[in-house]
């Protein structure tokens, strides 16, 4: 446990808890101080580690549960159940003739040359995907009535099979949900107690594969998450907590237990979303309006763009990619989610030689067991952490506060075992480090293009255990000249939970041409959506002022891609058509360049987001007086960019004072990680205890 000196934004006691795959992080903020703890996740009953952590911090601070005003929780429970296929026994009722929509997917291969590739298995086996005679057309007119007798027979079959959850997903239900609703009624009569997920509620948008996939994923984990959240709620009450419990959504917003239990699929990216919110809050505190966030853990690196303190969001996410993190190899989920690219590059990523004789790093990871070779727990293959150790970046005696005794010789032996380049361990270590940095930089570049954004003017915010080791090299490759390594980076997600606003997004499809828009129908739809979102937010934040945003997804008629643009949050009429057209055209030009087309505009999907006013950065504190940082020693480290070993000054972050300045080459060691400052960067510790690293003015590259 540790506590950091800086003030947190509010003085009321708040708790954030993030259950990840390996660790459960709990953070308590009270009276301007932050306390945190890290425990191993308890898989069989995830609430145990969480509650242990909470008790620990309450004991440490002497705060009573009744004094806590807020508990925010994020969990990978749903994600892991999806990835590891540990959900409940599930069936699907769908339009007759389309039971294979889940298996067919996009009918394409995600890897061009790999004839051995396999597509992800649907969550429902084919025998439990049952066709029901019924049909709507694209406008929502009934082409074929629902065969209710058939539904009852299907229910009998599900009862015999012992199915625990049912996904109901019919074609065009996003425009007319009547048949799905009726099926739900019949199922409640026939098989009471079985969980029901309707596609018109979980993901009411066009494109059947994504909607069906999202609905089955929701159904697959709903009973598990529901039971878990109820248990947790009761245990917290028993402990004496009187405050609300909120759940972190994949979008970066918060929601109630009630809503989270109905739509658990919206929780899958809660941990990474917390990390993005953390980075966004650091960006706001530091006044950085263009940010690239880099979160590097043991197995993956996550990269996210943040503009004006708001992480980019997206509507599609893929869970459980089966193959090298390749796009298209996972199950698509259409949920509001913080937009980030995740690649198989982390401290535990394994280095190997590929068939072309090239050094390759990841996506396979040694995980925490056996872990890097240096852990001495049976891992024999070299990892990124081994390279960092061999390069002298990690001090074996200080690692993890001395809790894990590192064996640098194991690292060097594993690296030499690659057999390349005469088996010189140090050169290979440079290679591993360079390749992993280059891989992360490549992913960031492609991601920026996909988002229509540039990178070189941004500030990099780096957190997660392995990020500080690689952040400056990564920044140099992208032409980024400013890097911030905040404190509390090891528990960033849980801290981020406490910075998130209560918010909820509702999305619906209603296709209409802008020049023929039926504003009466549209207003009715938008108002209903706003009401739904407002009620959910009100339940969580009854007194907070609310912000409402409405977005339309539109395209030129005949195109296949929609782009989002904001529309006024009020009643629309014919007079607004010109403004809507202008709004669309502006967004279109922003994304694709100067072209303006004289074509009809088609509006397809509508999103309404309501959020309670959230975190605001407190006013900037006065800058501390500048002083020279005092090194605690020096280490000989190889600089990958030049390939030469030089003396890096070694600083201890815990001993550094705000205002302290230092020049690269330098290493700033802390308990969980080390910040590597290249010979081309300088740094200082700001008033919050964050390390701010800036590129020296040019001249001496290479």
């Amino acid at each position, binding site marked *: 446990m540790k506590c950091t000196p800086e003030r947190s934004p509010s003085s009321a006691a708040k708790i954030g808890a993030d259950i990840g795959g390996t660790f459960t992080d709990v953070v308590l903020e009270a009276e301007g101080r932050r306390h945190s703890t890290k425990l191993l996740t308890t898989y069989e009953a995830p609430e145990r580690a969480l509650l242990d952590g909470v008790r620990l911090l309450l004991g440490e601070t002497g705060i009573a549960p009744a004094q806590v005003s807020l508990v925010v929780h994020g969990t990978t429970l749903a994600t892991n159940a999806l990835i590891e296929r540990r959900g409940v026994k599930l069936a699907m009722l769908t339009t007759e003739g389309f039971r294979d929509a889940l298996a067919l997917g996009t009918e394409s291969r995600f890897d061009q040359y790999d004839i051995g590739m396999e597509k992800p298995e649907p969550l429902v086996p084919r025998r439990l995907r049952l066709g029901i005679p019924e049909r709507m057309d694209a406008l929502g007119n009934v082409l074929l009535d629902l065969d209710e007798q058939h539904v009852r027979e299907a229910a009998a079959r599900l009862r015999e099979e012992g199915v625990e959850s049912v996904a109901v997903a019919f074609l065009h239900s996003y425009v007319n949900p009547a048949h799905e609703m009726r099926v739900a009624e019949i199922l409640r009569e026939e098989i009471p107690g079985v969980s029901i997920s309707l596609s018109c509620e979980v993901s009411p948008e066009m494109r059947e594969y994504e909607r069906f996939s999202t609905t089955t994923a929701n159904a697959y984990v709903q009973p598990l998450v529901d039971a878990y959240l109820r248990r947790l709620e009761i245990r917290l009450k028993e402990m004496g907590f009187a405050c609300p419990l909120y759940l972190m959504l994949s979008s970066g917003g918060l929601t109630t237990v009630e809503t989270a239990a109905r739509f658990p699929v919206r929780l899958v990216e809660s941990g990474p979303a917390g990390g993005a919110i953390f980075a966004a809050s650091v960006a706001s505190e530091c006044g950085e309006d263009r940010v690239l966030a880099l979160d590097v853990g043991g197995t993956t690196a996550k990269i996210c763009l943040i503009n004006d303190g708001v992480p980019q969001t997206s509507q599609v996410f893929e869970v459980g990619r089966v193959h090298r993190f390749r796009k298209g190899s996972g199950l698509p989920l259409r949920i509001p989610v913080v937009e980030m690219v995740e690649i198989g590059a982390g401290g535990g990523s394994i280095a190997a030689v590929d068939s072309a004789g090239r050094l390759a790093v990841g996506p396979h990871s040694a995980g925490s067991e056996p872990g890097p070779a240096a852990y001495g727990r049976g891992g024999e293959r070299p990892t990124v952490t081994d390279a960092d150790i061999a390069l002298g970046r990690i001090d074996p005696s200080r690692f993890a506060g001395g809790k894990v005794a590192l064996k640098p010789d194991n690292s060097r032996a594993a690296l030499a075992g690659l057999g390349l380049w005469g088996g010189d361990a140090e050169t290979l270590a440079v290679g591993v480090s360079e390749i992993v940095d*280059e891989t992360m930089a490549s992913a960031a570049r492609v991601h920026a293009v996909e988002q229509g954004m540039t990178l070189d003017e941004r500030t990099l915010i780096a957190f997660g255990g392995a990020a500080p080791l690689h952040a400056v090299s990564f920044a140099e490759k992208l032409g980024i000249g400013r890097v911030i390594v905040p404190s509390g980076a090891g528990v960033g997600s849980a801290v981020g939970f406490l910075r998130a606003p209560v918010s909820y997004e509702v999305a619906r499809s209603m296709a209409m041409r802008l020049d023929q828009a039926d504003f009466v129908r549209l207003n009715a739809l938008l108002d209903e959506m706003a009401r739904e979102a407002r009620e959910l937010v009100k339940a969580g934040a009854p007194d907070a002022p609310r912000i409402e945003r409405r977005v339309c997804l539109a395209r030129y008629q005949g195109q296949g891609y929609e782009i989002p643009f904001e529309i006024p949050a009020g009643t629309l009429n014919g007079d607004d058509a010109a403004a809507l057209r202008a709004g669309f055209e502006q967004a279109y030009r922003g994304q694709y360049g100067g072209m303006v087309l004289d074509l009809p505009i088609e509006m397809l999907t509508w999103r309404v987001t309501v959020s309670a006013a959230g975190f605001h950065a407190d006013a900037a504190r006065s800058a501390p007086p500048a002083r020279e940082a005092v090194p605690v020693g020096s280490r000989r480290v190889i600089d990958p960019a030049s390939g030469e070993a030089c003396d890096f000054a070694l600083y201890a972050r815990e001993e550094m004072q705000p205002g302290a300045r230092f020049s690269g080459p330098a290493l700033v060691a802390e308990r969980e990680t080390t910040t590597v400052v290249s010979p081309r960067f300088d740094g200082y510790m700001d008033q919050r205890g964050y390390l701010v690293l800036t590129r020296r003015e040019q001249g001496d590259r290479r």
Partner: protein
Amino acid sequence: MSTALGELRMQVIWTRMISIVEEQAQTLMRTAFSTTVRDAGDLSAALFDLQGRLVAEAVTGTPGHVNSMAEGVRHFLARFPVETMKPGDHFITNDPWLTAGHLHDVTVVSPAFHQGRVVGLFGVCCHQVDIGGLGQGPDGRSIYEEGLQIPLMKLADAGRVNQDLLDILCQNVRTPVQVKGDVLSYITSNEAAARRLSSMLAEFVMADLTEVADYIIARSLSATRAEIAKLPDGKWTSTLVIDGYDKPVTLVGTLTIDGDSLTMDYEGTDPCLPRGINVVLNYCRAYTVFGLRCVISPDVPNNFGALEPFRVTAPEGSILNVQRPWPVAARHVIGQMLPDVVFGCLSQAIPDRVPAEGSSCLWSVQLRGRLPAQGNGREGDPFDAIFFNSGGSGARPGQDGLSGTAFPSGVRAMPVEVTESAAPIVIWRKQLRTDSGGPGERRGGLGQTVEVAMRDGSSFEVLAMFERVERPAKGRDGGRDGAAGLVRTSGGKPMRAKGLQTIPAGERLVLEIPGGAGLGDPAARDPAKIRQDIDEGMISPEAARRDYRLDVGHLDIDGEEPEIRIEARSS
């Protein structure tokens, strides 16, 4: 700097160059107007050196384009020497014989400058939905009927776009806005890539690409040759007879492996036809080398060195090396069959590494009809709709074939809900076709059954371009054939697999899309897998009895709740 560090530097630059061309492809998809580029990914993007050698290529793309463009850039260099190139120059052509085999594929090549000198060339090749003429079907009798031909010429001169060319282009196509927008987006993506390349050269303090291009090509060449050298020496011939337009077409391929050299020769293949299913040699090479690389060297990044060792020849005037001015618009119908010919040869050389035949040719369904009349005495406006469907791929060593999945094509299918929103049609069924996967120890992938009709039940037309209706995918090593395709009306009337036909009012068009073939003796299939296939409805109990000699006891018709007794089987 030590040799090892020099080596590392090269690798880092190589990774960076692949990331630059991937950015080039993504920029193209984001800025292009036609759905073929944006949604289906029917494109390629790549970097070439000053000798016209492919150096790096985007992972995003489809084989027909990628490898065809690799052949084409040297023609640009011959016509427009490097010394004459200026910043802001862009060159264009859609000549099928120089690049990707039909007029719909437009290629744009642009010089990339660094410190005032040309250092490389970026190229993109994309499928245009419309290039004028008859449209993309097999009905043209010569190239002149198939659309606008753009010879090798300047699309832009020192930053000024060739307005004359754009005017001619717009006058010749049905959708000028999309076509013009697409062509301009090619410039955008090549320019973006060129800027990125220049800043990379600055970062690594390099004057040009010579050293790194040589490194990449030499590395890939030796890795590919090493893979070829592992194969046994010899000569193997394979014959594939396909449906053709109105009579069968025979494709004959002979593979010769000699040490680390490999040649695929199509001597014995049928002559070309006065129908647009002929293939130019570039495109023949593209799909042939794709098939070879899938099996022999899938992990070597695609570039000149990775392609060079594969020699492909076909007799001039044959259907795989057609000469001007024969028609070529629907060349994919035959081109997509070439990996099956390749696999036929390779399976004799390395039986354990090669899949059985698949449905292979994409079933793209092009429909025409009229919107409902508005009640003013005039008939409704005409519409065109297109949607893609894939059959089953061939069984693979150790693995079943993929069901309803495109191979070798790299395109994606559009959602049914999107198709039905764009046109007044209803797709009543799109479902895996039980028993269509060829039986075998490894089963072929299943095809699909697709049923489509007008929303109001009126009559409509189909522009059929379907394969493997007469001749199914052939099984291998004791594996059985996949199911053949079938085209009919819901009233039961058989229809032709190629050409324009009408479906009468009140009926549906029914497509039974072919399955992939099986590999190995069905009797050797793991009984647990057979049970699972019955359980999942992938095969019927009758088929299990007939094809796998399984006593399946009493089963209801859907294969539900099977009680399977596996008895001693003999083959």
